[in-house]
């Protein structure tokens, strides 16, 4: 439905265009804006139904994961989130696409799981994947301590020591969270290991980038150690609860009318354009361009 996105250099002739798949269907729901964000970042992105990836048929065309570089498990309520968020989706994907996804990962490609997608990655075992074991459930995302769904913006502290390719060059970021089951939970030794390996990518923080220390609503769900996002040991699989695609335009930010006024007082104008969440997708696109 959207018009073609213009204004970026993805059409430059000598630049390779990474191909991305955003999964859809079975109650997933952030597919349009995730697809839009990837296109803004310079990818050739497609919204593809889970059943199309499984059957390998998209209309009268063949579709295979191996022809793509970035696989996105987006937000939503897959299978209504009954029996645990992301649980039934993981079961379906493990059953039908487990090996294909593992191959995709071993080919050095990128997997991004956002919110429900993160919950699915965790249930598949694609993260944290200690020792490159991509089928073990070692951590969990469970019910928010508050007991309710929450929509709020959070400040995130980004671990510069992490191998995560999606967050290169970003030290803090503001994004919206929107979930009822986002509390990161794992046994203490697993959490220690995540930190040791640099696999903790995002932590909920205050305005100054200091960890939230569990304080609500800075840490909106009671996540242990304020963990908001983790990656696999390679840094090429990244799961996070906040929604980078939810900050695709500067008017998505809750303070944009205030910032606009503040700039106006300095005789400046706000620079219209994309939101800072797009940087996550740009990093992915850049990585593929340099690696493939």
């Amino acid at each position, binding site marked *: 439905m959207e018009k073609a996105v*213009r204004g970026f250099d993805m059409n430059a002739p000598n630049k390779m265009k990474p191909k991305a798949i955003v999964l859809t269907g079975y109650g997933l729901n*952030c597919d349009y804006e995730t697809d839009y964000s990837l296109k803004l970042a310079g990818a050739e992105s497609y919204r593809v139904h889970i059943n199309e990836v499984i059957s390998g048929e998209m209309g009268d065309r063949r579709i295979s994961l191996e022809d793509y570089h970035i696989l996105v498990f987006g937000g939503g309520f897959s299978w209504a989130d009954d029996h645990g968020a992301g649980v039934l989706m993981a079961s379906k994907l493990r059953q039908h696409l487990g090996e294909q996804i593992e191959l995709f990962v071993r080919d050095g490609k990128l997997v991004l799981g956002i919110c429900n997608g993160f919950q699915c990655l965790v249930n598949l075992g694609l993260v944290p994947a200690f020792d490159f074991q991509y089928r073990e459930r070692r951590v969990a995302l*469970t019910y928010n301590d508050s007991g309710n769904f929450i929509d709020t913006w959070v400040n995130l502290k980004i671990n510069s020591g992490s191998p995560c390719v999606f967050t290169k060059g970003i030290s803090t970021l503001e994004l919206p969270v*929107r979930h009822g089951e986002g509390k990161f939970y794992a046994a203490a030794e697993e959490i220690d290991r995540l930190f040791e390996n640099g696999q903790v990518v995002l932590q909920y923080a205050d305005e100054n980038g200091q960890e939230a220390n569990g304080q609500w609503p800075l840490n909106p769900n009671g996540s242990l150690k304020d963990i908001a996002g983790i990656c696999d040991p390679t840094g090429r699989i990244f799961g996070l609860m906040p929604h980078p695609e939810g900050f695709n335009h500067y*008017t998505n930010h809750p303070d944009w009318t205030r910032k606009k006024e503040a700039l106006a*007082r300095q005789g400046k104008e706000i620079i219209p354009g994309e939101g800072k969440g797009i940087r996550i997708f740009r990093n992915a696109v850049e990585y593929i361009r340099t690696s493939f």
Partner: protein
Amino acid sequence: MVSRLEIRLKNELIDAEGAGIRQKSREYFGFEVDAIRVIRVLTLDIDLKPDQLEQIRNEIFTNPVTEESSYSPIAEGFDWLIWIGFRPGVRDTAGSTAGEAIKDLLGIDFKPDQAVYTSKLYEIRGQLSEEQVKKIAGDLLANDIVQQWKVFSVAEWDKDKGIGFPVTRVILDHEPEVSTISIQSDEELGRISLERNLALQNRDIPVIRRYFLREDILKERKMVGLDLPTDVELEYISQARSDHCNHNTFRGLFRYHDLLTGNRETVDNLFKSCIEAPTLKIKEEKDWVTSVLWDNAGVGRFDDDHYYVITGETHNSPSNMEAYGGSITGIVGIYRDPMGTGKGSKLILGMYGYCVGHREYEGELTPHLHPRRLLDGVIEGVRDGGNKSGIPTPYGLLFFDESYVGKCLVFVTALGIMPATIGHASSHKKTTSPGELIIMAGGRVGKDGIHGVTAASETYSEHTPAGHVQIGDPYTQKKMADFLVEARDEELITFITDNGGGGLSSSIGESARFSDGARVDLDKVPLKYEGLDQWEIWISESQERMTIAVKPEHLDRFMALSAKHAVESTVIGEYNDSGYLQLDYKGKTCAYIRMDLLESDFPQWEFDAQWTPPDMRGLTEPVISEPEDHGPLLKAILSRPNICARNWIARQYDHEVQGSSVVKPLVGKGRDMPTDAAVVRPVLGSNKGIAVSQTLNPSYSEIDTYHMTGATIDEAVRKTLAVGGDPNHLGGLDNFCWPTIEYHPANNPDGKYKAAQLVRANWALRDYCLSYGIPLLSGKDSMYIDGNLEGPYGERRKVSGPPTLMFTVSSVIEDITGCVTMDAKFPGDLVYVLGETRNELGASEYYQMMGAVGLNVPTVDVEALWPQYLALHGAIQAGLVSSCHAVSRGGLAVHLAMVAMGGELGMELLLHLIPGFSGLTVGQALYSESCGRFVITVAPEKKEVFEETFSGMKIGRAGVVTESTRFSVKDGLEKTIIDEDVNDLKHAWKKPFGDLI
């Protein structure tokens, strides 16, 4: 063999659900519970081998990190156990998704009667009596209408047997049959109608009998094997003629009599004269108005390539019975209207409005659900319905009034967007043609929503379906929505409409009018369970279904797409041009009705409407001297239920999904002030947006519904303009909720007055829509907002809700980057009040607080206000406005304070500089609810240009925004009348519901 899997969180994890119930037990009943932990139960009525059972337990249903599970009872260390499960036939989505996952993992299929059922066990720890535990079970956790429950004490608990194996399969054991109905006399048909609960209207009965006795009709019917009317036929006619489907009240004849002037007037058809006529006139003038008054929703132009679609309705009675189920069914149901508008639209936004009794209600009457529980339930229902549909919910209202204990109101509103053209045709056009197939897609049909009243009075058995109150299923619908957008874009859909009230009878009955006929095989309609009679299949209101017309050559592709999306679609008949609606069951015709029967001359409903003007009713202005302590007074008003913060609702609604959010429900420095209007950018590559706002002011109805309507429309207009809405593009949506207006000397003695109130509200609707240029893109009416509540002495008392109009305004914004929010931005900014403050405190918050009603209700003079609105729009577009806020309930003091609170900054204000101050007392100036007013803040360097824009208009520079957080107001004599810290004001405003999450 049946097995039962029990799953719970490991002990070291916080059980947030249990903690929530513990908190509610304290809040609702004052019970101190030590701990509550929840066990999820799956009853598997499937034959599985032991290794299969272990496989699904480990691979699907137990998270090794957080959960533990067993096929044996796992409850332990409790004082009490509560078990809660659904009644048979209630939608158990989690049961069906569990089934899906099991089939997928094990590669098996279920037999027709095999299924998975979910239920819950609550381990209660604490010193509670059995009675207290039963109260928690029955009055907090379960609703008898849709659920069943049991309480176990430690002594009663058999830890080997546990809860047994609850299987809530529906077994009807009934062979479907068609019966014929005798029509020998009007009286006899009337009697049978009552007996069978056909709900035929007495005045319609002669028309129906005449039809079935016509020679030509008898002859034609004989040819298809029919003689006397069948139950299927009469149920169909009854549905089509109901007030819900046909809007008989709004199309009625009103004999209006003004008791003061003696003036008598006959008002023929409020819908035609006050809604249709003005809207068509405005449509002529505004080329953005695309399609109104016939489809499931109205359509307006968004840009060259897109239309937007808007509609709203209420779901009052079901929510009043089962708050969660009613409201989730309401929000999910309203989303089907845009899906079924034109060739179908994609949903972009939802809104809500709740009118309930006070949360702390302690009156003598016993409503079915206490307002607090009811409100919690409706909030949660809309939360799950909206969030799980992937549609942002960025706006809503909550209004408390004692008289809503009779029946609560739950408003739901939906917006969609669609490409302006599909193929080569405009997307808002659709029709059915002979030869096209009738397809039902989505959910299956059960006894849901059939004759709600009879169902409620039937005795429950273990296997009786509890169908009259439903639980909406956003998951099934979301899959269908994804599917339909794709089918539309592939040009596979020629007509689409939803199955709401009246089910197939309404969706097929109405769509067949275009082709002039249809034939349906009722036996092909997929059922939830066997044993439904033909008439039940035809009128069932089972949710999540659409009816679609597809050309035969497109069927294969349509079905392939449907399968891809895991959506059930079934061909159940075809459209034709026979002039008849023919229903067959297993080859035998059970209904054969001429398409034009419903257009024949059914008698119009008639009402006596008697208007007693407010002063004749004895209303006067109250006698209140000038308050001496305005500071504490302001804080007290800010803490009142209809003024204070209700942020906990907005926060649990996903208002940003789809990535389109521009102005959020909560704005300002602390992101905690309600916005005037929400703005979204539905086409992500474009800077065009849509602003929406909603208002309701039922308190004013106590004085005059004409002015209630005027004030409500004006407020919605101003709220939309305040964020940057375009005065030349204002779309309207009217949702009327009215008490019964049919006079009855014993049951409704003030019916004539209520009828006059309805007439007057409609007159105002007509007048203000014409003068503001607002086409009514859509609207609905919901009558009968009355309840008969049990009193303490075995009596029942009738409680009628106040006449209520929710008005919605939508506006397309050319460039959203020019939008403004309501919060003060910078110290030193100038504070302007635009619009005149008058002595208009009738039914105001201030008078209510003083226990008075008053007489001087706010009135709206559009001619005077319009130039100010245009100037404001110009100023916002020119970037002169730093913040803008419409003054509404509570008056200037409240709304100036809100602007200051939004910026967490102070204000210094001089009251005598507001337009209209002379002649008012300080109290009047602070708390009058005059319409047409805004609070605007402006950067000092823009002062001259800004003031020039408004030269000659009613605007006053009343003060300045300050760095210090003092909110200070001086009167005309430079005497300080309010001097409060903004943080204290905010604290007072947040306090009442501050603890809710």
